Structure formats: C-alpha cells, structure tokens
C-alpha cells in the first residue's frame, strides 16, 4: 500500500480531532453514567439489560451520526473549498485520496468506539459489581457495530464524491434506515411477483444489510451469534465497503473539480 494513503488517513484523523469530534464522548459519558446511576438506584433486576441495550445503542447512534456527518463532507467539502488542488497536483492518485479518506474516517470511528466501549464496560461494572462470561459477547456486538460503521463511512464517501453535503446526508441517512430493515425488505421482495419482484429483489440485495449486524438485543439476553455468522458478517462488511469505495473511485476519477 502506498504511504500516501497512510498520510492522507492520518491527516483526516487529525482534522476530525481538531474539529472537536471526539467531544461527543463527553455527551456519551454523561448519558451513560446518568443512566447507570439511575437504574442502579431503582434496581429492578434489569440493570444489566438496560445498560447493555442503552450503551450499545448509543455507541451505534453516536457513531452513525459522526460517520455520516464527517463522511458526507470528505470529498465535496475539499472540492468546494479547493483544498484538493494542492493535493491532487502532487503525486497522489485520485483513488489513493478516496481510500486514504476512508481509512482516516474509519480510524476516527474505531478510536471513538474504543473509548465508548470502555465507558459501557465501566457502567456495566458499576451496576453489576462484577463481570460474567456472557459479558464478552458485548465485544462481538461492538465488533459488529464497527463493521456497520465501515459500511456507512464508505457510503457517505460514495455520496460525497458526486453530490452536495446536504443531499449526501439525506441519502446516507435513508440508506441507514432502510438498511436496518433490510431483512424485511428482502422478505417483502420475496412476496411480490413479476417485474416488481426483480426490481425489489435487486434493491433489497443492493442496500446495506444492517439487520444481521445488529445483535444488541440478543447480546443483552446473553445470546451470541455463531462463529459462522461472525465470519460471514465480516466478509460481507468488507465486500460491501469495497463495493461502495470502488463506486466512489469510479465517480471521482471522472470528476472535473470546480
């Protein structure tokens, strides 16, 4: 891999940090500690359930919002502000720029998620006073959440490579919502007939499938996904990301800068 990708990724990460993106951790900490103290007080046997459900959902929501809001500006903002001129007039290939940006954003989210994960485990320890074996499943849920972020980052980047930030945000957010119901969509497509079936099936397979990546409720009930599902979800997320990034590269490669 070319070192330039690494440099671009690092600069993207630096931008996120200097734009005070990591301040979201404060909001997260407040939310989680507030909830932990509250359920710790009331104590009706579901503290663990509440902390895991709320904590992981918050990790996922905060991350999705960050991924979308940074992702949509990654390319279009640089075109708009013309900061790209002095980057692309260097020996930087356009695809390297896209890939570098992706890794930068993904890195930001991984770091952010890591900090939040510590928070979740902390809150869990506060309410349960100990860790049990099934708590390790939370790591799987967190891993799936990170996989989900990879997909969303690549999609935001894809939209950013051809459309304005506002539209990109709308697209990315819609896909996030639709993707969360991807299972329903595929099932629904199976119930239709004729041309609609072709169209619906195609669409159902093209939208990102987040429903298999969401195991928060199952993990809260101490049920983990099978190793096979972990493997296939990993592969799926990687291929989906590769697909969206290839699309972004194909578009950006052809794009006239303003």
């Amino acid at each position, binding site marked *: 891999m070319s070192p330039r990708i690494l440099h671009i990724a690092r600069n993207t990460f630096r931008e996120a940090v200097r734009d005070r993106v990591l301040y979201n951790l404060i909001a997260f900490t407040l939310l989680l500690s507030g909830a932990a103290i509250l359920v710790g007080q009331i104590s009706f046997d579901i503290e663990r359930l509440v902390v895991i459900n709320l904590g992981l959902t918050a990790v996922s929501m905060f991350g999705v919002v960050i991924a979308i809001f940074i992702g949509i500006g990654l390319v279009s903002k640089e075109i708009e502000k013309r900061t790209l001129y002095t980057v692309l007039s260097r020996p930087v290939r*356009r695809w390297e720029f896209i890939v570098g940006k992706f890794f930068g954003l993904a890195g930001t989210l991984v770091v952010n998620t890591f900090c939040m994960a510590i928070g979740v485990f902390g809150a869990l320890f506060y309410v349960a006073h100990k860790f049990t074996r099934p708590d390790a499943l939370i790591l799987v849920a967190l891993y799936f959440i990170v996989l989900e972020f990879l997909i969303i980052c690549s999609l935001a980047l894809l939209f950013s490579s051809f459309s304005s930030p506002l539209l990109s945000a709308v697209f990315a957010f819609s896909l996030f919502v639709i993707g969360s119901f991807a*299972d329903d969509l595929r*099932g629904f497509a199976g*119930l239709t007939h004729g041309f609609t079936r072709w169209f619906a099936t195609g669409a159902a397979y*093209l939208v990102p499938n987040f429903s*298999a990546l969401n195991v928060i409720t199952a993990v809260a009930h101490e049920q983990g996904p099978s190793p096979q599902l972990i493997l*296939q979800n990993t592969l799926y997320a990687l291929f*989906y990301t590769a697909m969206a990034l290839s699309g972004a*590269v194909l578009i950006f490669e052809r794009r006239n800068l303003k």
Partner: protein
Amino acid sequence: MTARQRTTIIAGACLAVSMTACVFLLRHIDRLRPKATIDDALYISSPTMVKRASLGFNGLMACIYWTRTIQYFGHRHFDRAHSYNELGPLLEITTTLDPQLFPPYQFGASFLAPKPPNGAGEPARTIQLMEYGIAHNPDNWQIYYNLGFVYYTELKDYTRASEVFARGSKVPGAHPFLKILAAQMAEHAGDFATARLLWSATFETSHETNIRQNALEHLRAISVDEAVTNLQAAVTRFGEKVGRLPSSMSELVTAEHLPGIPADPDGNAYQLTPEGRIQLEKPDDFPFVTKGLPPGYKLSGLPKFHTKL
C-alpha cells in the same frame, strides 16, 4: 493504457466482484438465521413496549410488523412447518401499533383460530383480538363478521355467532348478508348453503391472497361434501328400491336419471366402492372435506392449496 484507464478497470472489476460476493454472502447469512427477523421482532413481545420503542412512528411500524406477519405465515406455510406460535404475538403487536389496520383481524380469523396444521389453534386469543378490534372500530361491520365466523367455524357456537352477526348487521352500511346469517344460525347452521354463504363472503370481502385461497379451498370442500352426501343418499334409495347395492357408478346414474357420471371440482369422477361408499379419487387434494374419505383416512403431509388466484 493511461493510469486513469487502469484505475477505472481495476475499480470496475472490484465493484463487480464485491457486488457479487455481497449477494452470495447475504444469501448465506439469510440461511444462517432464517427466523432471525421474527426472533428479533419478538424480543420485546409486549406490544405496548414495542409501541413505546417506535418513537411515535406507530403507523409505519404497524405496516412493518404487518409485512413481517405475512412473511412469517408465508414462509411457515411454504416450509410446511407445524406451528404458528408467533402468529398471535405478531398480530397483537401489529394491532396495538395501529388498531385501525383492518387486514390483521381478517387474517386472525382465518389463521389464528383454526386448529393446526391449518392455523395456530388459538380461538380464544382470536376472539380477544376481534373484540379489541371491534372496540377500536365499532363501525367496521367486517370485524363483527369475522368474529361470528370464528364462532361458527371453530367453536360451532351458533348462538354466539348469531348474536355477533346481529350486532354487526346494526352497523350503518353493513352488508345485508349479516342479517341473513344471523337468522340462519338459528335453524340452518349446519346447512351447506349457510357454510357456502359464509365462505363466499370471506372470499369476496378479502384482498389477501392467503385468505382468499383458504376460502376457495373451503368452498371446494363444501361442494364435495354436498355432492357426496347426495350421492350417498342415492345409493341408499337404490338399495331400498332394488334390494342390492348398485354394481357400478353408471348403474346408479341410470337409475337416478343423473345427467352424467358425477365428478369432483377437479373433474375426477367419484368412486363407488363395493361396500357402497362414495369416495374421492384424490382425497389429498381436498384438505378440508369431511365426507367421501376412505375409512381411517389421514391427510398425508400437510394441506396444500391447489387453487391459484
């Protein structure tokens, strides 16, 4: 080849490969977790909790749960699964989210009440669902109809059925047949004509494929039951007149001045056994018939619907 062309080719190939891989992986994942959607959906099985969790998007969530219900039923039916345990909770969640959504009530009448393998076998739950529906939609005569239908078909409680039909017939704009049904329950509850009227009404008032197919199967079964009953009576008459059983179907036809060899709705002639019993040639094709079956007949496998809509 310029660097740009090379990138285009590689990115294009990458796009194609990863898209294919995604579809294959998704199919795998779906096979790994076939019931996952329903399991997920029912982790919170309390309808009120679901309603709270849907953050005010109740109507939309109701639609989603309704499609899940249909899918669940469709898959189970297709897979010849024996139970529909989750049907009740799904219908309850759907109707809690949107009490005005009518199709779930109709669906409940047709599939929640009947005994397995045709349904979930929960008539009491169905009646509760219907009463809930009537409480929220007092002006919808169709729910009264469906409730009466459950009393009639599943519980054979003709008095209750008659009451419900009568209640429904008072709703403004109610279909006139409710009045007729209410009246017929008293004397002619067991008549083929009554049963036919009911199932035809179900068929005509529904747009749901599963429900219509189910009604059509029942109508077929009713016409078989009626024909077999009539033919069996003819055999008895023949025996009283001639002093022996008819030796063949054509002998019976001649004696009774029938227009031709009688046949079931699929066009297969009814069989006459040496013991003088009228039987269906392919009883498996009529899952709901009660007459014309070989002695000790048990449906092999699960009912399958023959009619295509």
